[in-house]
Every structure is written in C-alpha cells, then in structure tokens.
C-alpha cells in the first residue's frame, strides 16, 4: 500500500451495473443499476434468493456472462476499467487477478484430468516459461495451503477420487496458486454438508487473512455471510435492496426485505412458529 490514492481507491468499484437479456417477450434486466465497492482486503457478501441477480453480478465482473447477455455500467478493478477490455486482455485478468470458486465442485472440475493438471494449467497459461516441474510444485504447495493432506500424492488424483469438501478445497487451491487480488466465491458451500461448510468458510477467511486478497461471497444463506463478510449487499429481483457494514445489516436492517431474510434464519432460541416466506405482498 504505497500511496494514499491507492489506499483510498477501492479494490473493486462497481457503478450502475446492469445486465439484461433480450428475449421473445422483450428486454429483461436481471441486474439493475447496481453500485458497490469492495475495499482492499475486504470481504463483501452479496445476499439474495434465487433469481436475485447475484450470480449474474459475479459473472459480469468476470466477463463470463452467457451468450446474449448485455452488460452496461462500469466495473473497475484497481482503477482499471474492465468493461472496455478486449477479450484477450480480460483473459489475462481472469484467473490471475480475479479468481472464482463455483458452487458445485464436482461438476466444476473436469473429470478427465488430475486435479494437479487443472491447478497447473491455470498457472502455466498465465506465467510463461514455467516448467512442468515448477508448476507441479506450485500445485502441491497450493494444495497444502488448503490443508489437503498428502498433497504430493493427491496431486495426481482425479476429481472423483476426492470427497465434496476436498473438491472444493481443490477449487480454492486452484485460485490460490495464482495469488489473485480478488476471489469471487459463488455459493461455495451450498453443495456441501454443514460441518464441511464451516471448514470451507474458515479456509476462505484464513486465505483472506494470509494473502490480503479481497473476497466476494455470493450466497442465499445469511448465516454464511455473517461468518465471513464485513460488508453486505442485499439484492432482490436484480435490484439493490440495501447495503452496509455487516453489523448494521444484522442489527439494524433498514429494508423490510432484509428483515424478512433475517427472520428466515432459524435460531435455536426461536419460538416455533410458521415458516415465513418472502412473498411480494408483504414487502411491497
């Protein structure tokens, strides 16, 4: 953190981000005029139910929106505007500066290649002149950092030889090998069982602490963000409902919808009542 301007400048600055699709029925926007900042080394939680546009937001940042999607607005990483980059330049950013961890670790890893190969190929495509041997060492180190035991042997195993939690560790190791400035984790724990979820969240927190990388955690689960994020963005139907420091969102939510999401989190001291839904009539 050399200069004052660099400190003041957020790591990621998203302004007026809109993602739309043209369908037979006309144009639909799945993300509408979204603004948020992510401080250097900060952890941002984007929360919302399915279809709220949270995953589209992350794909928009990665420049990996599906075919036919239209993206407008501004996304700045460290002062560099990403939306105007060419595909080739964006490739250099992907994986290297922004890395992504996806929801389902089994289907997100290619079954035909060893996990080592899959960790190495990212590294080798971004750093020219890296020998196989050196890349392999990096892969093993990355696997050790995510606490995969016996990494030197496991590096040659295929994804189906790992358990769900271990696969997600492999995914995280893949992002780690590149030492990115920003890690986007899209529902990283949803496909895992509860005890493993906690381990993965701890791991993400640990990595953030150790590497100083910024983290965007996308989830529908408030319990998950509460453990990791220091800043929270609540989304619904593509709109920004509210955002603010995690503590304020949890203790003093401003929007009815946020309150409803918080109420939907089961608590052990709750009286047993009816299961609440977030129906439109109640919020609007």
């Amino acid at each position, binding site marked *: 953190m050399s200069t004052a301007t660099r400190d003041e400048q957020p790591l990621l600055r998203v302004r007026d981000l809109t993602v739309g699709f043209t369908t037979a029925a006309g144009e639909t926007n799945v993300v509408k005029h979204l603004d948020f900042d992510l401080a250097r080394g900060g952890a941002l939680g984007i929360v919302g139910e399915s279809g709220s546009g949270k995953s589209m937001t992350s794909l928009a940042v990665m420049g990996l929106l599906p075919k036919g999607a239209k993206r407008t607005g501004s996304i700045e990483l460290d002062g560099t505007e990403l939306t105007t980059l060419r595909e080739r330049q964006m490739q250099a950013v992907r994986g290297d500066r922004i890395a992504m961890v996806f929801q389902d670790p089994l289907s997100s890893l290619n079954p035909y290649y060893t996990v080592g190969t899959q960790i190495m190929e990212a590294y080798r495509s971004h750093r020219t002149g890296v020998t196989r041997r050196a890349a392999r060492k990096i892969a093993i180190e990355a696997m050790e950092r995510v606490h995969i035991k016996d990494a030197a042997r496991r590096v040659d195993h295929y994804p189906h030889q*790992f358990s769900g939690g271990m696969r997600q560790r492999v995914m995280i190791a893949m992002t780690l090998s590149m030492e990115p400035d920003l890690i986007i984790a899209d529902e990283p724990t949803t496909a895992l069982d509860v005890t493993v979820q906690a381990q993965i969240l701890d791991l993400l927190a640990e990595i953030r602490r150790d590497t100083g990388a910024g983290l965007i955690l996308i989830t529908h689960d408030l319990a998950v963000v509460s453990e990791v994020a220091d800043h929270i963005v609540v989304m619904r139907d593509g709109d920004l409902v509210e955002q603010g420091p995690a503590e304020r969102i949890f203790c003093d939510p401003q929007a009815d919808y946020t309150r409803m999401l918080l109420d939907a989190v089961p608590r052990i001291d709750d009286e047993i009542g009816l299961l609440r839904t977030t129906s439109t009539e109640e919020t609007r």
Partner: protein
Amino acid sequence: MIRFLVNRLLGMAVVLFLVCLFTYVIFFVLSPDPAVQICGKNCTPEAIDQLRANLGLDRPFWAQFWTFLTGLFAGRTYGTGANAIECAAPCLGYSFQTSQPVTDMILQRLPVSATVAIGAAVLWLLAGVSAGLLSAVKEGKFADRFITGLTLTGMSIPNYVLALSLQFLLVVTLGWLPFPQAVPFSEDPAQWFANFLMPWIVLSIGAAAVYTRLTRANVIETLQENYVRTARAKGLSPGLVWRRHALRPALTPIVTIFGMDFAGLLGGALITETVFGLNGVGKLAADSITKNDQPVIMGVTLLAAFLVVVGNMVVDLLYTAIDPRVRVGSAT
C-alpha cells in the same frame, strides 16, 4: 483392472456361446434337412441316411451341437474310414454348394470387406466429426442449419439408392470413374482405388450423418458443462478451453459407437458389396442366403457376432484408457 478384464472376457464367452447356440438351432434344427438338399433330386433314402450319418445329423441335438463347438476350437472329422474328411479348426463345416470349407471361403473374402470397412470408417469419421464440430461452433447459424439438413438427407437415403445413383452418375453419365474391375492393389493402385471409392462413399454417408449429429450434440452439451466455465474463469485461451476441456469429453462417446459400427461393418456390407459386385463377406452372405447354403450363412453370422463382441470388448478397454472415472476407483 484384472478383475474387470476377467469379467469382460467371461461375459464375452457367454455371449458368443449363446450366439452359437441360437444360430445352430435356427440353421440346423428349424431349417429343412440339409441331407436332402445336398443329395439333390435323384436321391435314394439310403443315400440320404448315409449323408445324415456323415454329417452327424442322426445324433441327438446336444451331441451335434457339442461336435460343432469342438469343431470350432479343435477341428472335427466328417464320416469314418476311407471317406473321412478332416476339417481343421476353426471348422465351420463345408459349403453345400461348393463343398469348400466355410472357414476358407470367409477368409478369402475378409480382406475385401476389411478394405471396404476401413476406407468407409476413415471417411465417415473425418466427415462426421468435422461437420459436427463446425455445426456446433456455428450453432443456430446458416452453416449449422445447412449441415443439419444434409444429415437428414444422408440418413434418409437408402444405401442401394445411393449406390445405384452414384454408379449411374459417376461411371455412366460423367465417366469420372472407370467401370469397376477387380484388380489387386499391387497391380494397378489407381484402378483399385477407383473400385473402392464408391463403396466407401456409399457406406460412409449414413454413418457420417449420424456422427455429425452426435458430435454436434456432444460438443454443444459439453460447452454447457460447469468445468468449461471453470476453464474460462481460469483465464485459459478459447483454443485451450476447446481443445482440452470441450473436445475430449465430447468425443469420448464417439469412440464407443465407432467401435461397434466398425466391427459390424467388418462382418460384411451386404447391400453395398452386392450392388458393387465386391467379393466380400457381405456378398458371400447374400449369395449363400439365396442358395440356402446353411453352413456358409451360419459361418458368416457367427463371424459378424464375433466381431461385434470383440469390437465391444476393445471399446471397453479403450474406455478405461480414456476415462479416468472407469480406470481408477472413486474416493479414497
């Protein structure tokens, strides 16, 4: 791995045994008495009995079947004493029409069928896979629709229509190809090639159409896979994403189908060989059917079954080499 191999081999043996049994039942029990057919018109009951004894037809079914089976592996002897004829393994009997050993007849024809099959397979793989890839890349665009239209046509045209039309067009009307004459490769490679060109094209069109569709569907499906998204998220170049993460998973199923199709074709292309007058196993089958030459029909049937079963086995083995999920066990 060894267990897998042993299992597959045992399964293969069972399938082949059943195929033998069924073909034997169909051709020797349910068909008209072979002895009567061999004997011809001016035949005495004694002569028929003599023939039946020589062929072993007077014995119970299981004994006959057992002799047939051992004949396949160890050879057998027809008749006794001075009239005895030794039939070496694999003995498929003698043709009722020409009295030649069926095994020799098939072995003579096999190279022609193999040439036809290999050439056609190369053609349809090249054409089918590349058209399928192009179609997948241009999904929804003109090229894709055009190719899809072509495949529909290719799949709908019957072989013999295509064969006759091609012959008429290329040989008779345009004169681009010489009239087919059987020549060995060593004598006149150009004529040899010209002879086989049409059968190759005819046989490959239908398969190429199927492979095009298959490749297209597989590639489009694979591109939707999450791991392709991961590869892109890692910042790999589009070329690398394609080659490494899309093509290999997409083309693996093609191997399965190809093994089966190719093996089936090795056993003879009945219609195509007949139309083009190629002396292959398919033509042998067609001829023996019209003449009701049971040992030959049975021999060809067994060969085809054998090839398909072996082809299947080879595909399974290949699959273990290609797909690590089959090769190495799951979570440790």
